[in-house]
């Protein structure tokens, strides 16, 4: 094995190219093995080599551990992994029968992971599980017994095979390899190093490693010395271990002297020489303390554009953006970098769409249900999963219906036999109760369609049945039986599209073992584990990836985003049972060290400019925060002799566009005066002018309701209470019919006390108001100057009007007053008009002399008649403002859009928020239109 050291990656690539272009004595069919630290580096190396050599073929690119497993032919397969899991699961259950299920599952999972790690990292331990050979404490010796029990149940022994292969290499396999090149590994475990040393006597093998400095900085204890460069000491600890393991060999050294053209180069040179003097920061390093991720990305875009503008030959394939949190920054970069103007756009690669297969989604649903019981929300989440929607061919509309059906069928968590249970919901759905026109899902967009005619129902019922099957099966059963149960359920969930999960071959020797449902689902979930990785875009599109992806790639420009204290490097948790963590060997995987090493590599391999940014202010307390510890060491290197602060602190917030859009001409609209009004038209426009205006425009501002499907309703919430009151008024319910109404209304909780409901929702006075039967007024027409009001279909003045609230100070009260006003304007009367509120109060209104009423009505019509301009009366506040005016005529109430009364009526804000005079206009209208009404409003009392 030949070691090649250089501080320069390009030199190492050149070495690899040289090796590959040299003559090989093996058949061209024998592949060259290129061992790389990760897939992205591998891909990059392939591109580089293709460009340098003119082509690249029959080169196997793989990782070191893969190489070791392949050569020893011991790679544990899925069969083995399954038997390992079940061996652990059964042994553990026997040993600790008293463990609670979640605890048992968690422990089995940990043990499974730990033993998988032993298999790959410490097969020597497993071959001779013995207290004398193992560096083990008394308290951990149970693991030996456990392993012995497990091993007895395993059919294969990859650890033995691997250890054997280390002693007696498989010459046939090794013969099939032309050359082995290991390119800048991030770690070499002792096991892998032994394997390489034993196996590569006959094969040309090259180990190319980047070393930041030719000094012997990695010898024992050198890192601790104060004269070691802080970056070496801080970030290269892992690399030092690798070097110290290799130091016996005679390496080829390809060190390249660095020219200190920029601050970044100066730093590299200092690391190279292992000296440490202050460096003054320049354009090559940008250290930015931002206040939000979006701000970071906005600033980065500016910086990148500046960089690109300097030289037309600069390209985006020389730029890499990395972050410990690609999930957060990926979409932000896409959003900020995207612009339709090509001179503002930096092209990004599309966000990798995560599509898991339908089996994965189905198993997740079953596992969730088993763990936490039946929840309607999880069903909906399952059905709206992309893969599921595609497989079951569900449209958006169908999904919307399904959401409504779930809610209306009352498919919620509940006790067995409860009205809201799964079975009851299923029954309701099957009976097609939802097709009842009264409770049909009335959305604005769809024609009402009976659910029997849609396939959405089959899907939903299918899912409910599958869930039912799983839930009602016993908790413990034979493994074979459990698998069949799960397979049947999955089959149902996917409407037969997934016939079988083909799991039986993996459990042959455990088929009869008694296991819990949840452990079976955990096993299946573990098998399905899919890694989500973001590939590095190696062309001229920008991608946002994890820092590891670029660790062995030389880059012109690198931007590290979100290098915050607790995310980079991240803290890691070792399980207390993990003996590897307790007895580490050089070259073992240590996550947090890995990230430090990545940072060191990025610093060394960035050629032109390096950007590092982090969130430097607490979002709420606004206190300053440091970036990650490694970054802090890096920043310290630039605290030059002068007192220039190396980092740039951005002020809070995201700025606005410098060019606001000018408001279009305000007077463009020609008034459209409506002269003829029906009474209903009048009432709805006058009482809610903004809503009527928007409706006229064809829009609506009420948010669509998306109820929480998981939560059982506990009480009649405000909205439902209102609906009930409304139902009560509109359907004129009596006490008896109310009971029926309640039982047919699955939105309401089962425990609702009918008597209580009657008291709250059907107060006696309101009920009395209904019983006063009155006639409708004679249809007639009222002419008020240029306006005509057609009065038809309203009750006479004798009928009390019910305001579905506890007070009349609101839109509904205003509407009732206006109705009264119309009645008073029709003919003279001595009678007053009575308003009944839901808290059993009666408020008399009027009488108003006819002339006065007519004049007032005319004023109202004049105020609202222009249908092209909204009347600036903020109706929900009108009565409140009028009362304030009554008390003090000089009062100046101000419209606050956050006012409670406006919370559910966003229309007013939408229309008037940018009107600077809205408060004055509202006040003037209230004074002329509403205040006069108020003086006829009597004191409320408690009888009709």
């Amino acid at each position, binding site marked *: 094995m030949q070691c090649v050291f250089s501080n320069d990656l390009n030199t190492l690539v050149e070495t690899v190219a040289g090796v590959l272009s040299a003559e090989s004595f093996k058949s061209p069919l024998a592949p060259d093995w290129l061992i790389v630290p990760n897939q992205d580096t591998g891909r990059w190396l392939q591109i580089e080599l293709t460009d340098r050599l003119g082509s690249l073929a029959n080169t196997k690119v793989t990782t070191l551990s893969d190489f070791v497993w392949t050569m020893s032919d011991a790679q544990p397969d899925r069969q083995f992994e399954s038997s390992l899991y079940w061996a652990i699961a059964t042994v553990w259950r026997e040993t600790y029968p008293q463990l609670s299920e979640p605890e048992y599952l968690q422990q089995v999972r940990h043990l499974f992971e730990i033993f998988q790690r032993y298999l790959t990292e410490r097969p020597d331990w497993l071959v001779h599980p013995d207290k004398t050979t193992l560096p083990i404490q008394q308290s951990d010796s149970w693991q030996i017994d456990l392993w012995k029990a497990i091993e007895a149940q395993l059919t294969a022994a990859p650890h033995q095979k691997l250890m054997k292969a280390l002693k007696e290499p498989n010459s046939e396999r090794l013969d099939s390899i032309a050359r082995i090149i290991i390119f800048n590994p991030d770690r070499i475990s002792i096991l892998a190093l032994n394997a390489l040393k034993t196996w590569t006597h006959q094969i040309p093998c090259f180990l190319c490693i980047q070393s930041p400095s030719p000094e012997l900085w990695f010898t024992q204890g050198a890192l601790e010395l104060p004269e070691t460069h802080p970056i070496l000491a801080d970030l290269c600890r892992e690399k030092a271990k690798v070097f110290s393991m290799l130091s016996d060999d005679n390496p080829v050294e390809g060190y390249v002297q660095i020219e200190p053209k920029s601050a970044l180069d100066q730093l590299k040179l200092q690391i190279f020489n292992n000296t440490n003097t202050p460096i003054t920061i320049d354009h090559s390093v940008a250290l930015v303390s931002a206040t939000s991720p979006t701000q970071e990305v906005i600033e980065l875009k500016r910086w990148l554009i500046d960089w690109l503008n300097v030289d037309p030959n600069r390209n985006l394939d020389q730029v890499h953006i990395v972050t410990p949190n690609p999930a957060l920054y990926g979409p932000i970069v896409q959003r900020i970098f995207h612009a339709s103007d*090509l001179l503002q756009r930096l092209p990004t690669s599309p966000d990798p769409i995560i599509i898991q297969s339908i089996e994965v989604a189905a198993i997740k649903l079953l596992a969730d249900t088993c763990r936490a019981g039946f929840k309607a929300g999880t069903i909906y989440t399952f059905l709206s999963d992309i893969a599921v929607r595609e497989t079951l061919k569900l449209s958006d509309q169908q999904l919307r219906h399904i959401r409504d059906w779930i809610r209306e069928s009352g498919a919620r968590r509940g006790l067995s036999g409860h009205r809201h249970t799964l079975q009851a919901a299923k029954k309701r759905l099957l009976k097609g109760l939802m097709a009842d026109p009264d409770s049909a899902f009335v959305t604005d967009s769809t024609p009402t369609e009976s659910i029997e005619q849609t396939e959405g129902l089959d899907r939903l019922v299918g899912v409910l049945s599958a869930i039912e099957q799983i839930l009602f099966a016993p908790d413990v059963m034979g493994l074979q039986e459990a698998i069949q149960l799960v397979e049947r359920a999955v089959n149902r969930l996917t409407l037969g599209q997934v016939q079988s999960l083909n799991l039986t071959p993996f459990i042959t020797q455990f088929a009869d073992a008694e296991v819990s449902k949840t452990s079976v689902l955990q096993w299946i979930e573990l098998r399905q584990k899919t890694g989500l990785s973001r590939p590095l875009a190696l062309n001229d599109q920008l991608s946002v990836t994890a820092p590891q992806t670029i660790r062995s790639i030389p880059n012109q420009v690198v931007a590290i985003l979100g290098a915050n204290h607790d995310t980079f490097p991240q803290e890691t948790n070792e399980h207390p049972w993990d003996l590897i963590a307790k007895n580490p060997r050089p070259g073992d995987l240590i996550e947090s060290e890995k990230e430090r090493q990545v940072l060191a590599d990025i610093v060394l391999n960035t050629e032109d400019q390096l950007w590092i940014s982090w969130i430097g202010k607490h979002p709420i307390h606004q206190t300053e925060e440091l970036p990650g510890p490694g970054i802090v060491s890096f920043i310290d290197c630039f605290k030059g002799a002068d007192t220039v602060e190396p980092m740039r602190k951005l002020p809070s917030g995201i700025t606005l566009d410098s060019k606001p859009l000018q408001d279009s001409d305000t007077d463009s609209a020609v008034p459209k005066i409506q002269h003829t009004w029906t009474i209903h038209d009048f009432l709805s426009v006058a009482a809610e002018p903004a809503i009527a205006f928007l409706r006229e425009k064809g829009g609506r501002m009420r948010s669509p309701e998306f109820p929480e499907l998981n939560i059982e309703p506990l009480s009649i919430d405000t909205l439902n209470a209102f609906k009930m009151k409304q139902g009560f008024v509109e359907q004129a319910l009596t006490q008896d019919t109310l009971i029926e109404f309640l039982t047919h209304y699955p939105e309401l909780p089962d425990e609702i006390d009918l008597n209580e409901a009657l008291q709250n929702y059907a107060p006696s006075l309101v009920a009395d108001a209904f019983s006063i039967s009155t006639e409708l007024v004679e249809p007639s027409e009222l002419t008020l100057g240029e306006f005509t009001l057609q009065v038809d279909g309203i009750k006479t003045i004798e009928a009390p009007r019910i305001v579905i609230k506890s007070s009349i100070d609101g839109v509904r009260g205003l509407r009732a007053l206006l109705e009264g006003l119309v009645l008073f304007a029709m003919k003279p009367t001595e009678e007053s008009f009575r308003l009944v509120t839901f808290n059993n109060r009666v408020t008399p209104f009027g009488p108003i002399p006819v002339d006065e009423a007519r004049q007032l009505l005319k004023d109202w019509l004049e105020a609202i008649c222009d249908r092209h301009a909204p009347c600036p009366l903020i109706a929900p506040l009108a009565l409140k403002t009028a009362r304030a005016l009554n008390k003090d005529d000089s009062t100046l109430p101000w419209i606050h859009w956050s006012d409670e009364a406006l919370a559910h009526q966003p229309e007013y804000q939408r229309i008037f928020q940018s009107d600077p005079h809205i408060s004055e206009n509202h006040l003037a209208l209230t004074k002329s239109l509403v205040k006069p009404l108020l003086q006829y409003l009597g004191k409320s009392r408690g009888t009709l």
Partner: protein
Amino acid sequence: MERFKPELLPGSGRHLIEASAGTGKTYALMSLMMRAIAVDGHQPEHCLLMTFTRASTRELRARVRERLIEEIELLKRDQSELTASYPEFSKDIGIDRLSRALRQIDAIEIQTIHGFAIRLVNDFGPSIGIPSFPVETEVGSIRQEVAIDCYRQLIKDQGIQIVRSLTGGLTAFVSHAELAWKPIDDIKPSQTVCPDLSGIVSEFTERKDALLADIDSLFALKGMTRQSLETHCGNIEKATTRQNIPEKSAKYFLEREDKFTGTVFDHWVELVKPSDTEIKFRAYCLHQLRQQFRQRLNDLGITDNDQVIRDAAAVANRLKNESPKHTLILVDEFQDTDRHQWAMLDQLYPDEPDRLMVMVGDPKQAIYRFRGADTAFYHQIRKSLPEQSLWYLDTVYRSSQTVVDGLNALFDGDYSVGNDLQYHPLKAGRPQDIPPLTMNHREVAGFQWIDSLSPESVVKLTQYLVASGQQGSCKIGSQPITEKDICILVQSRGTAQKIKHIGERFGLAFHYQNKASIFSRRIAKEMVFILEAIANPDDLSSVTSAASTTLMGFDLKIPGQLSEQSRFVELQTELFNARDLWKSDGPAVAITRLFETCLTAQRIPHTLNGLEDWNVLTHCLEIFGEDAKGLSPLEAALWWSQQAASKKDADDRTSQRPPVESGVVTINTIHGSKGLEYRVVILADEIKGKSMPKNTWGLDYCDHNGSVIDLTNRAFEPALQDQEQDLNRLLYVGLTRAKHAIFLGFSDTGSALHRLLHGRDIQSLGPDHQGIEVPSIDDVIDSFEVPTASPPYLKRPRIPSWFFRSFSGLIKHDGGHDIASKASDESYEVVETNFNEKWHMVPGGTDTGNFIHAILEWHADEQRESFALEQFIKSNWPLHLDPSHEPVVHDWIRQILSTELASQTTLETLGSNKKKPEPQFELPLKTGLHLQELFQACEAFSWWNPLAPPIDQTINGHLIGFIDLVFEADGRFHIVDYKTNHLGPNDHAYSDERIELAMEQAFYPIQAAIYSLALHRWLKSRLTNYDPNKHLGDVIYLFCRGIGAPNRGIWRRPIEAQGVLALEECCLCTQ
């Protein structure tokens, strides 16, 4: 108790430092740490610094770092206090130790108490049988479930009537259950079994009857109206249980309780109060709720913040030799520590000679009573420590002399901040460094008292200060005062809102960090409409709704319906585009594009509100991008509306960030201001308590013994007293935030400030208090300017043009960025007919193709035994195929393997060193090459039939691919590509003509040419003496389904040298 100085503190033992606000608590902690590391030689990894919030852990780490650097510098320059205080201390050793600590700064453990507990449970729990479940902070819905189940259980056990009457129904029960979730262990009375409820009705009736029998003695009492007394007694007479008594009647008796003590009235009062059994029942319910909640969490395999502390205490209790080896333990904010947290620390770190534990706290700043914090516990610990372990800090470094003196004068009364805790006067530490506030060249006193501090006058005062600052007449030192220097502290959010709105009228910009989540803002709610419209762009109503939002910016002034506007069609088209973009490029790009076309960014008004909206919107989109990955537009709308509808308070992530730094005045709550300091503070609220809840089962309070949930009838008094003390502490915290001056108003009775004044007037408080009037000003202040920025421009546009293309990527129309995906061999499924036999009936599709490829690849990889094939097929059987096809596939593969590919060569007989399955290749294409040119170059092959490319485009980049198999026979190298295309139901469908047609339809000849080129380059680089005429063999396409046909399904063409050389010349980069 002694004034704290680091050098006086012994090197071990447990100590408590009482540090008033602004007395340099953190500085003291840092000094201790420096001493411990440099002088006492504690290892960095053995230092533990514990505090309460994550924010302060980060801040502390920064402070530790700063101090380490500073101390090293000081030592180097011989200016360190350490050398002065510790004569035997060696400077060099100190520098060495501190440098090491600086290098290993992340080894110093700086943790929140919860973070520490979680670590402890994770690290040691599983080994001693305490599970380390993930911590779930949002347990509200689980609690609700538990409450419902608990109620159901009670009904089952006790009967519906009695439970309903005792609890008031499910709704009431769930709201009463809130008490159970308070982090207070002590419930008074404690009840673990359900009391006997059978007699509860009869007991009430008996007592009632007895009283009614002697009702005249009640009527004989003087001082109340007989008529109302009769009404209420009548109500009681009608009631069958105590709960039936109308509330107003119960209130009638309870309100007059004190007035008639010692008379018969007492018995009536007793009657309307809950009986002992009822109280016991309540206690039992709370007990049940707690137990069931624990059980539920355990069943779900999760834990919550409270439980994790208890678990950690249990872990600490059971650990013996393995516990963490910290030798220096510093606990910040010790007044907020509770019993369980202390139990954990106490067990983990016993008082040992080589260990120093220092707690720092200020009981006057314990303001978390509302969360159930135990304020008595601090005092108990304080009492348990010997006198020589108690220290105090009383020199204020934060505030000016007049503020400190004013504070002392104000609190110099009968002022209690907690049981047995009194105020001690403070000293100003750096009077010369903190200049006072000057107005019109006159120093003003620390405390400025204003008549009636209404929101209007707060705004006017602020306006006055800012205007005077702008004119230069109001200064701190030589610096004129600006908006940034002022902070308005409020107790309630309502006041904050009012001030903000009134400020708008006066042209003053106020920023108030609302506690509500950013998703509850109007602008965020509008996004729901837009997402809905992207999900349903064909639904007119959804589109109109989106159009009516401000984000889409339709002009409402234009007459007619929105849908009649010309932009409407454009919007609808954009929505369709957005839906497509969503699928191809993800939500971020789709939404950005939509915003761009609708000029959303430009529509935002240039005001503070506009700026806030814009910041909120981008912030929401950040969270959306991260959390809503992979959602369809419909799902996204649902996700967003759930966020918008959530009533939960904002967390660190969903709190609004300040949209701007300067030019605005900050409004903060007192709770939110803890730990912060401001130059000038305006206390805009009177500190008043909330009225105690009615209709409750009990109250919680903290007395001498600690926090308790009191269900008895005697809870009110202690709860009220506790609340008063809590308000005093809140007031203290508010008043100690100011550096230079405080403005505050005279208050009403009932407020904490009023009680604090205790009847004193301002004059009697001394020269540091002054009464002023809010000056009215005519000066217009420079209004707030919104920060703006213009987008950066590129000098040249960047259009991506460089791709990796496989064969399938090459012939695809969009020519997109395809990364090494295999050509999909089959585009249609098999229709099963009667003619189907053998492998023809195996369903087609990409999955089947991949399966066959996988088997053949596996087989070619090594020398395989025949039984292994069967095994391989079995264990890799794909989900989509019916297992009944297994023998057919087995036969099929056998047939393929035995097919002769070259003379006397089959896949089966080829030695493994003579074949190579799936070799990868990569070829660099010439820059600017057209696909057309590549097709034309292929004409050099003699067998080439003219073929037109599907689309002509430039193809820059690399060609990549995998060849199914390359083998060597008779010194020549051949290429094999397997195709599982379905050409018909039986062998007849695989005639030469049909295969040729299929080849051309799928552009396979171009694939064959590319593979040939790849083989040529490969051999050129690896084979000594390579000669294309000598070494290149055939390219073979094996149509696997036609293996039974006379031609064995084979399409074979020679790889001719002139062909590959022409291709190489025309297409490839030559280095």
